[in-house]
């Protein structure tokens, strides 16, 4: 769980911690219950079979804190008239972990996706390498939800999953705004990482389409480079690189086990 100060779904000024003077000056906005309460550092939730080592104590990293070029990627699917945008998002939230491509694991709370939740991830990054990291639910309402990444994740940024109506059809999309978190990840993206990420979200949207009952889900991908400059002052993000840390943690695992056995005897 994240260290948060406000309850989920809060609607009154008192519930979201506004002072009387503040609530009089600014009426409670209707998005108040949709945003996560402020956190400084993440706490790793307890999830069966997963370690939160690369999440506990990490700060969130937005595109401002990332290293690499800034990309905006949109994966969009026409779900036709099978459901409303709100029903599509409700299904996506309820079945989010099941819709991920095989070999990847999203361990979130059982109750779906709510602002302030932290989920642990095991991602297949290629060559049999796993990356253990996490995501934070930054925003969630009935039309969309947004996940933000912590230090050490491949990306610094956020992904917004949304649905909208265009004519009679419902469209669902995943919208990524991100920079690679450090130089190592930036190199990885250039060497096939972008292609792998595109495939990941196309497969996820296709799985969502199938669950919604779309006959032949087709996903359109649009990629725009928003900023071609690299932010070299954030190169030291590499210290938190979760891929390197996961690899070192796996190499060290047998020794940790032996140390525990010796301590116990």
């Amino acid at each position, binding site marked *: 769980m994240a260290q948060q100060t406000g309850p989920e779904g809060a609607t009154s000024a008192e519930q*979201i911690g*506004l*002072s009387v003077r*503040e609530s009089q*000056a*600014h009426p*409670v*906005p*209707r*998005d*108040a219950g*949709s*945003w*996560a*309460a*402020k*956190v400084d550092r993440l706490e790793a939730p307890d999830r069966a079979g997963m370690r939160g080592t690369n999440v506990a104590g990490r*700060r*969130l*990293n*937005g*595109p*401002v*804190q990332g290293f690499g070029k*800034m990309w*905006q990627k949109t994966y969009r699917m026409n779900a036709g008239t099978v459901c409303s945008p709100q029903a599509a998002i409700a299904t996506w939230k309820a079945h989010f972990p099941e819709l991920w491509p095989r070999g990847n694991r999203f361990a979130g709370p059982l109750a779906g996706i709510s602002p302030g939740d932290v989920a642990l991830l095991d991602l297949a990054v290629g060559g049999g390498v796993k990356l253990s990291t996490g995501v934070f639910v*930054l*925003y969630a*309402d009935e039309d*969309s939800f*947004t996940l*933000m990444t912590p230090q050490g994740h491949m990306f610094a940024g*956020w992904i*917004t999953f*949304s649905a*909208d109506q*265009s004519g009679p059809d419902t469209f669902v999309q995943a*919208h990524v*705004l991100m920079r690679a978190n450090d130089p190592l990840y930036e190199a990885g993206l250039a060497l096939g990482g972008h292609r792998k990420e595109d495939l990941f979200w196309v497969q996820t949207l296709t799985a969502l389409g199938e669950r919604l009952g779309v006959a032949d889900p087709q996903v359109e991908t649009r990629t725009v480079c*928003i*900023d071609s400059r690299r932010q070299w002052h954030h190169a030291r993000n590499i210290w938190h690189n979760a891929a390197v840390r996961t690899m070192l943690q796996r190499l060290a695992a047998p020794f940790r086990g032996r140390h525990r056995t010796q301590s116990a005897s």
Partner: protein
Amino acid sequence: MEAPAVRMDVRQAGSGVAVVDIKGEVTAACEPVLMTAYEEAEAGGARRLVLNFGGLEYMNSGGIGMLVTLLVRANRQHQELAAFGLSDHYREIFELTRLDEAITIYDDEASALSAALR
């Protein structure tokens, strides 16, 4: 996508400083409105852009993403972004998303302009 429920008015507030008064809802749908306001400010020679969020009624994560895009565009032109008029709620969102590390937040217009004109 729905039509944006926002209005953004640009006013010049001194040498090289423009204030954008934002009234309504900031979502991804209002990107054309924001970019038009930015271009108007830029055409007036603004080197510092001050966003007035005093009239902000609603903002979702798409709105925050749009502000990041504006920030990149401004940085490319060596322009600075600042903000004032944020309620505690929206100030927390700026802090949560760490946008406050790139967009300086001031309590009111006087302090934002005083810093901008310095």
